[in-house]
């Protein structure tokens, strides 16, 4: 919300976040941010007690006759899905219906991980495929109007599980970590915050719900967007839908969790150009590339900063090391833009043009036609960066490839995957 230039005082002294964070970030009198303060709870709370609390929260939802699912679990071929299903099925002994939204930008690795997920854990899964014409129209519009290629993914991933809960009359939806809590300390773990429509609209969807799209952007019609509409309050209340976050009850540590799932359940990972983390987002050609590039243009920082802050807070990186990693990775060229252009039906130069329109002048200055000077977060963070050789403490292992040169194309879901 603040316009003036960033100074050292705009930043947390412990991690690399600034008060310009799009979710909102508060610095306290010691210059420590709300995200770091809430992270301190991870080393202070009694996690055994919290697990017991989780068991009592889910108890009323266990199906009495075994004839319906106990819960809905949203999954993808990446992120924390394996660990979430492990906790739900193997630790809580619930019977989940997995749901996944086809984001179109699927890598082979992601498809493989998703197939392996449902097979290894022996779960039922529902996939939502919205028709490609609507998805392309929506994506073209959201890219033009607010510089996002990911709106449809975020909208679909966040609403399909809720719609499924209503349609199947399975009230409990179980998510992993709450992004607001993990990144900016939006809530204490002890608040046991639940899923709300308000959070989804305000943060996941950048203020734009499905119902807002046709009125602002004339090319879209109700036919293109109705699938992304949140169920109304009456429907939610009739079923008693509630969404909980395992991260409120389990000491959430994605790196450690992923490594566990890699060794016990064959979750496969891959390397990216724009970050050191190999575990998140391996299912998507665009999240760590085109989407991440746009984030840098609009927000002045990119996902590698989120990864660095997370590892700093977990004590596996110092702030200096984190900053060194950020500066190393955040200007790397995004990959696979050609695939996106082919899919959307735009030329690379028109994509570049559209992207440039969304460069935030607070972070970018055009010094000559087509030449941009970056004045983003990492340029104002202040701390002297550590040499890159020092960051052995935070190693991520790639056991697969995000981008297999032999088969570089979006994988169409529905064809299935050979086990």
């Amino acid at each position: 919300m603040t316009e003036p230039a960033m100074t050292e005082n705009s930043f947390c002294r412990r991690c690399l976040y600034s008060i310009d964070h799009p979710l909102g970030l508060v610095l306290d009198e010691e210059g420590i941010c709300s995200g770091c303060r809430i992270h301190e709870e991870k080393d202070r709370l009694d996690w055994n007690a919290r697990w017991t609390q989780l068991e009592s929260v889910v108890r009323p939802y266990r199906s009495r006759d075994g004839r319906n699912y106990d819960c809905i679990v949203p999954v993808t071929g990446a992120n924390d899905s394996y660990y979430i299903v492990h906790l739900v099925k193997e630790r809580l002994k619930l019977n989940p219906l997995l749901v996944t939204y086809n984001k179109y930008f699927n890598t082979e690795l992601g498809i493989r991980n998703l197939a392996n997920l449902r097979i290894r854990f022996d779960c039922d899964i529902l996939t939502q495929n919205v028709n490609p014409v609507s998805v392309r129209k929506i994506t073209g519009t959201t890219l033009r109007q607010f510089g996002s290629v990911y709106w449809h993914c975020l909208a679909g991933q966040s609403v399909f599980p809720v719609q499924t809960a209503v349609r199947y009359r399975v009230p409990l939806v179980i998510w992993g970590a709450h992004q607001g809590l993990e990144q900016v300390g939006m809530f204490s773990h002890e608040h046991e915050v639940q899923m709300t429509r308000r959070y989804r609209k305000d943060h996941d969807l950048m203020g734009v719900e499905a119902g807002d799209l046709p009125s602002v952007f004339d090319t879209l019609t109700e036919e293109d967007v109705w699938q992304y509409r949140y169920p109304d309050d009456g429907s939610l209340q009739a079923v008693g839908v509630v969404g909980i976050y395992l991260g409120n009850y389990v000491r959430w540590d994605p790196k450690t969790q992923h490594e566990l799932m890699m060794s016990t359940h064959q979750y496969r990972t891959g390397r990216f150009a724009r970050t050191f983390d190999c575990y998140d987002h391996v299912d998507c050609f665009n999240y760590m590339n085109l989407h991440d590039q746009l984030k840098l243009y609009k927000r002045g920082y990119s996902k590698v900063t989120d990864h660095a802050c997370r590892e700093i807070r977990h004590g596996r990186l110092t702030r200096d090391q984190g900053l060194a990693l950020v500066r190393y990775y955040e200007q790397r060229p995004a990959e696979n833009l050609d695939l996106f252009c082919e899919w959307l039906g735009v030329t690379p130069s028109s994509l570049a043009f559209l992207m440039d329109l969304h460069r935030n002048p607070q972070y970018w200055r055009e010094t000559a036609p087509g030449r941009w000077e970056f004045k983003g977060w990492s340029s104002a963070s202040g701390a002297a960066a550590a040499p890159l050789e020092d960051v052995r403490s935070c190693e991520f292992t790639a056991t697969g490839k995000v981008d297999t040169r032999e088969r570089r194309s979006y994988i169409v879901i529905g064809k299935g995957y050979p086990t």
Partner: protein
Amino acid sequence: MLKKRLVGVITVRDGWAVQSFGYRRYLPLGHPEKLAENLDRWGADEILVLCIDRTRRNVGPDFDLLRRLGSLGLSTPLAFGGGIRTVAEAGAIIQSGAERVCIDAALRDAGVVGGISALVGAQAIIGVLPLSFDGAGLQRLDYLSGRSTPLTAADLSLFDRRVVSEALIVDWRHEGMTAAFDFNLIRRFPAPDVPLIAFGGVSEADQLKMLFDDDRVAAVGIGNSLSYREHAVQMLKRQAGGTSIRAARFVSDSR
């Protein structure tokens, strides 16, 4: 008969809606307009937006925010406060779509408050009193200096003379805590005819019920905890029960 009100309180700091804890600690929530729109859909009886950093920065009320809230076309009554210094500022707020103004720091200036009352009417003014109970009597906090002094008859004069209609009693010590509102602030409030809005550390239905049962309480404000659950307003209304407040409503086929 007049119903009691469940008021959704939105605390705004540096343009962000935040959770506030004891007037000291803050956690981010999001955009105030998104919270207001959500409270409107949930059927809160009133929305109270308090911009807590405006007076300290001496920048006057946040008219930009008020304009954005106004453009939402909310169908819920809105009270707006923070940074009000002059009669003109208060008048402009009422003309911009808020039903009522909230005054804290300026409450100490009887001349200004009198002028506002003459312009917009006592019904459009809520006087904010951050109070604490020290075992002997009630103390009023001056949030700018951080000092508390005993609540005096002079403090209550504007209310007694009906220049200001309602008092927002803020249990600032317990703000942000679960089920911690100190009922002494109501029980020991020296002016029995002044309608009170209780706020600060109210989160549970049984507190709500107890407060609504008290004749002095016209409304109860809830802040932070409304953001922790879906349908928080409706759930509290259902559980607090009774006919003293409007029934909970779940919108069907929302826009």
